[in-house]
């Protein structure tokens, strides 16, 4: 659906749901996932439907993914880093009901 206009000069390796992917340095996670053909970034915490980025500028909160173990990250607001582990998010973020040690 999307393709890059310019071939990246420097690529970074990251994974999405365990699958190895490449991004250009400076790509947001959302841009890199869209370029890799990912359609469903998450499933809604309210209705369970698949969702993808809508605004790409930090407003819509539809591009949420789990990055390096932290859920509800706005993938359009985070740059890809080498070795980043990205996972699609299913359902809501869970916060621990207990006091952090």
């Amino acid at each position, binding site marked *: 659906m999307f393709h890059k206009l310019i071939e990246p000069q420097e690529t970074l390796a990251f994974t999405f749901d365990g699958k190895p992917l490449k991004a250009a340095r400076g790509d947001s996670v959302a841009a890199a996932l869209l370029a890799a053909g990912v359609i469903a970034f998450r499933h809604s915490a309210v209705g369970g439907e698949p969702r993808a980025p809508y605004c790409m500028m930090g407003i819509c909160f539809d591009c949420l993914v789990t990055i390096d173990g932290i859920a509800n990250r706005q993938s359009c607001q985070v740059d890809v880093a080498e070795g980043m582990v990205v996972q699609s998010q299913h359902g809501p973020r869970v916060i621990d009901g207990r*006091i952090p040690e």
Partner: protein
Amino acid sequence: MAYLGRSDYVVIGGGVVGVSIAWGLARAGVKPLILDEGDLALRASRANFALVFVQGKGVGFPDYALACMAAAERWPQFASELEAETGIDVALRQMGGFSFALSQAEMDQQRDAREKIARETGGRSANYEVLSYRETRERLPGIGPSVVGSIFCPKDGHVNMLRLFFALHAAVAARGCQYRANHGVRTIEPTPEGFRIIGDWGEVQAGKVILAAGIDNQRLAPMVGMACPLKRDKGQVLVTEKCAPFFPYASTVICQGDEGGIKIGSSTEALSDSILTNQSLSAVIAKRAIQVFPQLATLNVVRTWTGFRIMPPDGFPIYEQSRSAPSAFVAACHSGVTLAPNHAFGLAPQILAGRLGAEFSPFTARRFCVPQAH
């Protein structure tokens, strides 16, 4: 300029108070016209915390403590009737509510207030439990060590405000009531047949008029022979990202909506007219919430907003029927969500009957005019 003809009942104000009364009138068989301001009106119904909250309310005014309890007990029927009429579930959860104390002084003050309410109502006010830190933590393992204790009241709860507001509007529309946005009211003139209600849009004739215009009641009430003294009391709310349910109860510090977002509040600023949020106040609100629930520190705040509570001088509601124009009524309160079932099931039928009975007559604004003894 439009002439909207004549309406037997006109409700001025399309917020949760006005629409609850309008729905109550419609349930009782009439079709009020609702005149409302536009999207940019100062509207507590769009800003509030959506609590059904009873505990601690009515110190020094036992009729108010009992009204809050009656409302909490009417809420399940109110929610189920709204759902039956509109198909909209307002997500009422009445699992009880906590008031958290972060110092012994706060704990003592909160307990004293509840004991006073119980005394003043002859023990008829809502039950509550005073819980130590340890007892609170047994029920809520996530609380922080700064919590000295809490008070739990089983009547407290919360709703989804957006869906409540939507459901009330859908319910009055389904019952054939007309709703007019961008119809702010400039003047009301008593006439032999009722009232002339005039705005920039034109005018309408009314048989009975019900003022439910929030802060604007202060300006409108004298036009129909009443006083309705009010002040704006600014509140500020932070909302976090959605997360899995972890606190199903109500509290004045945090409230997790049915869709997972956590509202954090609630401040009061008496002297501000600005709708802008105040970042240093946000920090104080957030800090207090994190003292109660340390794990909130890991969450992102996605929105903040402010709203103005409609605050009578003593904090208690104003309900009154005009003496000089007895077809005019006024309703003003800051707890429009908690009290919504009273407005629909209690106040509206009494307006229809033409007289406020024992449930509402103690709330006249004439209480502010009692001559002081010297």
